[in-house]
């Protein structure tokens, strides 16, 4: 039931307790109990909204930055990652297997700000060996949701 609860919430965090209880076939108390547990355990980390900023007049620039690290004694991935993710403009940081070490997702208002973050802040962190910055040109799908998808029912209206 936990998994089902989480997958409903992942798609719709605005759903209320009573509806959750109906959909899952359990009592509201049970839902509340599960939710508070999941929040306390840090399984549920927030109730965010998926926004397609491209449809607003607000300018946003997003970049994916591949970061290569050189590790020193006493300074592992985690401590370097921490120095990066503490910047609020950093949206996400992932440790990656393969050709580079960290994937940093950065969101800023302008290209210039991204450039200055990479050259002024990111590259100067101890242990950062090199970076490669990729700008996102268009988002097709985000958080499992296809953006700009027209929801049209193509079925015949009545079928046996």
């Amino acid at each position: 039931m936990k998994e089902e609860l989480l997958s409903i919430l992942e798609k719709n965090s605005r759903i209320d307790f009573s509806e959750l209880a109906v959909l899952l076939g359990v009592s509201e108390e049970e839902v509340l109990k599960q939710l508070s547990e999941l929040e306390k355990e840090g399984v549920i980390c927030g109730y965010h909204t998926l926004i397609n900023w491209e449809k607003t007049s607000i300018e946003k620039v997003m970049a994916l930055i591949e970061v290569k690290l050189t590790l020193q004694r006493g300074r592992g991935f985690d401590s370097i990652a921490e120095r990066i993710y503490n910047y609020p403009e950093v949206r996400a940081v992932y440790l990656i297997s393969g050709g580079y070490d960290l994937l940093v997702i950065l969101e800023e208002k302008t290209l210039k700000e991204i450039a200055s973050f990479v050259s002024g802040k990111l590259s100067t962190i101890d242990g950062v060996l090199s970076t490669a910055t990729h700008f996102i040109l268009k988002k097709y799908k985000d958080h499992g949701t296809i953006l700009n998808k027209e929801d049209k029912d193509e079925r015949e209206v009545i079928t046996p």
Partner: protein
Amino acid sequence: MRKFLSDSVINIKPSGIRKFFDIVSEMKDAISLGVGEPDFDTPWHIREEGIYALERGKTFYTSNAGLKDLRFEISKYLKRHFELNYNPENEILVTVGGSEAIDIGLRAVINPGDEVIIPQPSYVSYEPCAILAGAKPVIIDLKAENEFRLTADELLSAITDKTKVLILPYPNNPTGAIMEREDLEKIAKVIKEKDILVMSDEIYSELTYKGKHVSIAELDGMKERTILINGFSKSYAMTGWRLGYACAPKELIQQMTKIHQFAIMCAPTTSQYAAVEALKTGDEDVIKMRQAYNQRRRFLMDAFKKMGLSCFEPYGAFYVFPCIKEFGMTSEEFATKFLQEEKVALVPGTAFGDCGEGFLRISYAYSLENLKIAIGRLEHFISRLRSEN
């Protein structure tokens, strides 16, 4: 022109659904809960296999019985999900949807005057297919108080010495009823005693919400007298691919294959390749869709309870079958008035047999958002009816 036409075809009455369809089609802004197919798209990996098959030039006929790979996968699937062992070499026939399997299965067993027992409410094609095969349909009116399950007594009283085959349509369209193991055991006993066949249409077998579906062919001594029908339409959301299959003893499959070979040749090749992929790696998709249907089912049952609309709890397919007898209207009157006043299309229960009178079929192959809007209108409608009375 009339003199050129076949009497037996002329005498078949057109589907009750068709009539309603014409009314709905004229209303542009109506929303529908009348659809008998999944709202999900076919999972992408399955569609891709279809596309690859075309790219690789798999555009020829397959063998009459269907791709060998597909028959092997069907056999493995039936073993994995049910306690069924069918030999892919000679006990499985790939058909153009479950519909074709129903048609040729009946034609392969009927001699003139044989009787086919059809429990109703049920899918619209059993009766016409039986008639076209030259049989006499014998209808059993299923009862709401039995949750529309078939009982051994009902079956016994319909059997005569002309009875050839019972059609067993569970999980059921339109009622959403299921038959659990103990229900099936009682039926199986009668079938064996009376030495008749059963055609078990299990097209909704993946969509049950109270334990796992049990096939009647799993029961002792039943495989040799069962034509099992299943397909890809409902379980993998593949209605438009037109692909189903029949499993039966090899003597029967042999005769069915003959009809299939002359009437159809083989099921669509692209669809067969896609179906191989569905069976190999589609289990996860089925689980996800089933979970979504189950949430909607719970939502509807809760909504009916709140508005005081009587409905037994269905545990199969994606239909609920509420009773509207309290409003003193026929199903068709209710559905027509509801459509005109609230612009929501439902199917009157009578489209699935006379005993569907007093009931409506509501499909939950719709998103929760759509269901909420439609159910809001239903609530509005029935509270007005109640205040008028």
